[in-house]
């Protein structure tokens, strides 16, 4: 029972860490993308609500935004892969860095 509790605590710590990374990190990244996209547009609104014209669109913003969204989409697809794999009695393994389907332990 004590061993089981220790194992559970470890699993919980693991869950918390990964969940923080994904559950808080991804929306933050997504928000960064939204912000970058706004900077990539030709107008920008300052904090007091006044629309300011900037001289030209900033393509860098668009590139950064695209990169942020791409990472988010890839991780979400991985999430779907985890669900699907679980349904088929498989698990997603990251041992080879790129994800592979393996039989559930």
């Amino acid at each position, binding site marked *: 029972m004590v061993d089981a509790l220790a194992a559970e605590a470890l699993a919980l710590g693991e869950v918390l860490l990964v969940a923080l990374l994904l559950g808080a990190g991804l929306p933050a990244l997504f928000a960064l993308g939204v*912000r970058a996209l706004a900077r990539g547009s030709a107008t920008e609104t300052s904090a007091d609500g006044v629309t300011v014209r900037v001289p030209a669109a900033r393509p860098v913003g668009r590139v950064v935004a695209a990169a942020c969204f791409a990472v988010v989409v890839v991780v979400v697809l991985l999430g779907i892969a985890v669900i699907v794999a679980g349904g088929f009695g498989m698990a997603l393994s990251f041992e080879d860095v790129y994800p592979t389907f393996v039989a559930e332990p």
Partner: protein
Amino acid sequence: MTVTIVLVLVIVIALAFDFTTGFHDTANAVATSIATGALSPKTAVLLAGVLNLVGAFLSVQVALTVTNAVVKIQAPDGAPVPGLVADGGEALLVIVLAGLSGAILWNLVTWLLGLPSSSTHALFGGLIGATVVGLGVSEVNWAGDGTGLGGVVGTVILPAVLSPVVAGLVAAVGTWLVFRITLGLAARYTAGGLRWGQIGSACLVSLAHGTNDAQKTMGVITLALIASGRWTDTESVPFWVKAACALAIALGTYLGGWRIIRTLGKGLVEITPPQGLAAQSASAAVILVSSHVGLALSTTQVTTGSVLGSGLGWPGAKVRWGVFGRMVVAWVVTLPAAALVAAGLWGFGELLGGGLPAAVGISLVLVAGSGALYARSRREPVHADNVDAPWPSSEVPPLTASDRVGV
């Protein structure tokens, strides 16, 4: 012959439970998206329903041993305990029937009150209650088999305490980050951009719900089939069982448990798009990660914790603690309450002499009770058109009077 009728009743009632699981848990996936306007109420429940259907069909893995978590009516391979099927399985079927009926009635009571309580806890509670009176306290699996955390303590109590804490923490951090990053941006950027993030995470939660929760009913129905000698394979579930369960949970989800959606989306926290995104992402991440490492957290409690966390993550966000208090009470009470109802139903069946009369009697009580609860809900209906109405200034009453029709 009588066993066949009892079996049919068990299957119908199991599907009814699956249906209540659907509409009881719709809120988990869509409440925040509806509250922030990312999705219209009807689109949201349609999306969640379809993804639940897809998710349920994706669950190829057998959940046949689902009752093993809390009671000892199945051997480790999923077959019923031999002593229980000596009479053709009737005694076991009546216990399962009473358990399911107790779970349904409790799900309806909490739905009427607009409280997000765990459908899994209701199912486990019902099974425990019926088992205690039908077979004795010793047949309840209190603490697992010692090889890991199992039983009532490991699969019900610990996760119930941990889920909201973990999810709340993740959502609070996420909310703070998203608010911080989008601070000062024009609403047209944040509303449009954050909307897609919310929709994506709502889809993930729906899909995960379909794969996890429809399986439980599939397992219970297959157990009933095995107990009555209609199915022998403990490795797979008959296809019609899978299809029926998938349809039942999807239809329930599509119906939309508007009362609960309202509490979770409007009542607990006044949710803004950044909070919606953070809460929903936290829910999806915590559910997926925990099931990946084999830690079974409750979807309902994770979602509620996330919404609460999103209310705590940014100074000035408003949390209605009175509403949260009511939810916590519902969480604590769900398992014992469903157990009491199921035990009472089983006792009632025993008075009728057990077997077929008991099964018919319990079913009639279930129908009457459900009808009464539904009739009560019509007095203050909550539906797609008023689910987003402003929360009344007094904290507790979750419902608004309305003459419109809806569920």
